[in-house]
């Protein structure tokens, strides 16, 4: 963990504070840079320590002060989530935004059934989220303010032949976030479900067909705009909203004959 303390806030240098899980690469790293640019103090959490340290160093060098600190943590270690959450809020001096971006997509063949892979994705995409979203929700409920951002996926909108457990884990996260939203809106807390399409990151480099690919930086910009507008759900980029509307309405008798 980096030892330096977060740069202090003042009326002319107000700093929002965010925890971002899954920050070491891809959308998470790009979003971290985007938020640092907005003056956020960031507790960046990920499993891959070296990448995370490098990211923090780059962000802090550009800002000329400590905007980001790295915390190594594996979201599969659900027992340590609550204590780490408490430590991060203490280090940050409070919390304004909580972002769960950790995710795993393991390629599964069309005829393959592998429980180990499915459980792994469920642990990272959903169980880890539960372990972290509970303390975050309790914190914001008590404060009567705050924002929770969950990284869902267009993949969570339908169960497809290609990625059953990935689809299911993201669908579970969507539903859980919807329930949190229904609980927390009355306390002034915004719960935002992000549903990215294809973003040029490590996650999709093995995927066969990837239409409408955007860069991680573009995704981070769109997510930031959705956060600023305190939206409920945001497809990234927005065209996916229309596309998924159509896909959601493909009748099952057709959908189950498709290989997509």
């Amino acid at each position: 963990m980096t030892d330096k303390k977060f740069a202090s806030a003042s009326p002319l240098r107000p700093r929002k504070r965010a925890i971002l899980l899954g920050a070491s690469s891809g959308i998470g790293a790009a979003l971290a840079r985007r938020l640092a640019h907005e003056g956020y103090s960031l507790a960046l959490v990920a499993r891959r320590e070296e990448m995370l340290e490098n990211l923090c160093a780059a962000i802090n060098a550009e800002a000329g002060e400590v905007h980001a600190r790295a915390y190594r943590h594996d979201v599969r270690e659900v027992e340590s989530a609550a204590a780490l959450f408490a430590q991060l809020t203490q280090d940050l001096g409070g919390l304004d935004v909580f972002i769960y971006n950790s995710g795993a997509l393991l390629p599964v063949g069309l005829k393959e059934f592998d429980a180990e892979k499915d459980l792994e994705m469920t642990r990272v995409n959903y169980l880890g989220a539960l372990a972290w979203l509970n303390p975050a929700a309790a914190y914001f409920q008590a404060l009567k303010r705050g924002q929770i951002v969950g990284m869902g996926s267009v993949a969570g909108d339908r169960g497809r032949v290609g990625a059953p457990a990935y689809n299911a884990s993201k669908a579970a996260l969507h539903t859980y976030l919807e329930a949190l939203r229904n609980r927390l809106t009355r306390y002034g807390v915004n719960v935002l479900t992000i549903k990215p399409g294809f973003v040029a990151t490590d996650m999709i480099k093995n995927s066969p067909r990837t239409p409408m690919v955007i860069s991680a930086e573009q995704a981070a910009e769109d997510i930031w705009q959705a956060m600023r507008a305190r939206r409920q759900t945001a497809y990234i980029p927005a065209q996916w909203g229309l596309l998924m509307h159509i896909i959601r309405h493909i009748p099952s008798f057709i959908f189950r004959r498709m290989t997509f």
Partner: protein
Amino acid sequence: MTNSTLSLERLTTLENFGHSLQAQSHLYQPVNTEELAELFRQAKKSGQTVTLRGAGRSYNDAALNGGGIVVSLQAMNRILAWNPETGIVTAEPGVTLQQLWQHVLPDGWWPPVVSGTMFTTLGGCLGANIHGKNNFKKGTIGEHVLEFTARLPTGAEITCLPTKNGDLFYSMISGLGMLGVFTSITLQMKQMYSGLLNVHAFPVHNLQEQLAALMEGAPQHDYIVGWLDSTAGGKSLGRGQIHAADYLAAGDDPEAQKTLQVAYQTLPAKFFGLVPKNLLHYFMATFMINPGVWLVNTAKYVASLRRGEQRQAHAAFHFLLDYVPDWELSYGRGGLIQYQSFLPKETALAAWTEILTISQKRGLPSYLGVTKRHRPDKFLLSHAVDGFSLALDFKITRGNRAKLSAMLQDFDKIVLEAGGRFYFAKNSETSPETARRYLGAETVERFKALKHRTDPNHLLESDLYRRVFGE
């Protein structure tokens, strides 16, 4: 153990007085010293820092502690002893100046030093070592403290007088609540023969006249304060109005019995007998843009050209800020900051001429300027000098933060060059380097050494402390 062990029910968002900073903390409100000591034990056990908070009237982050514990002392607000013969009062730290003057005035006494608002607490007043419009004559509030007892974070109780534990007496007062908690404060009040003051008002036409009026007026009056129209430039730069006030001698007020009553001092509930004053800040907000402020300042200056002399109640003269409840809300969502610099009498004119000119040139005029006359004092983190102070209020908007920040850094340089000082109750942008320069490295080290003695586990920490004195 971490703050997961602290109840979420205590979690809350606290702000500074200018509504320009927010911090989330666990807020506790002890009612006695035992509960206070228990909080320190809890903090130590859970690895938390503690910040003391009075009325929350500081313009900066002195009473904020993001991610830690904030201990509000507002429930420790009893007046423990009052002797109307000697004018000596002993009170708990949460007692406000309002409580204090209302308690002592009917017996013919008044606090010798008060801030521009009566909602501040004694603990906060001592922590910042506040001054009033009579700083040149009466010094800071610390100079009227006969003794105090304090609870140190170690659990020890200590009594300090100028002659006993003097090093702690002169450092805990002005020490920003970082050395210990005042639990009982004994103060000498000033005898009054009337609830009224003789107030003279006269205009000054530029900064030189303004400072000369303070300089020459101070020895002749009990109080003196200047209002500065910070929108006027050129030959009129620094123009404004001086208010000087004098106590009435015994027998001067035929109705002293009546004017010394609290009811007589109470601020009016309506402005111009018409507008309910708790709505006034909405009305004021419409003027809080550059042209609006120019208009208001100019109108005020024109009105001030008529010299005046009148008798005014103490509360009305001192607590101008309290006339408009929540006046700070009129500055809008971004809030406001105050920049107050203290300059030696020799360098003040040139330095403030430069500062006011820069502020106008960059299109960032101050919305309110106030000048005072000061004298140095012996307290460790002292802000006063043999000279003057100028307090400038600035409105914060979404777009002006970076420009304002850069400008204040330029101001800091000018003030430091001119041998000036700053005031932690007001300035929120003072950098560690600036603080070290005006206080002197030796003073900062001494402060830290004393802190290490009274608070070896570093339990007492505020956002201000971390920002300015943090490693």
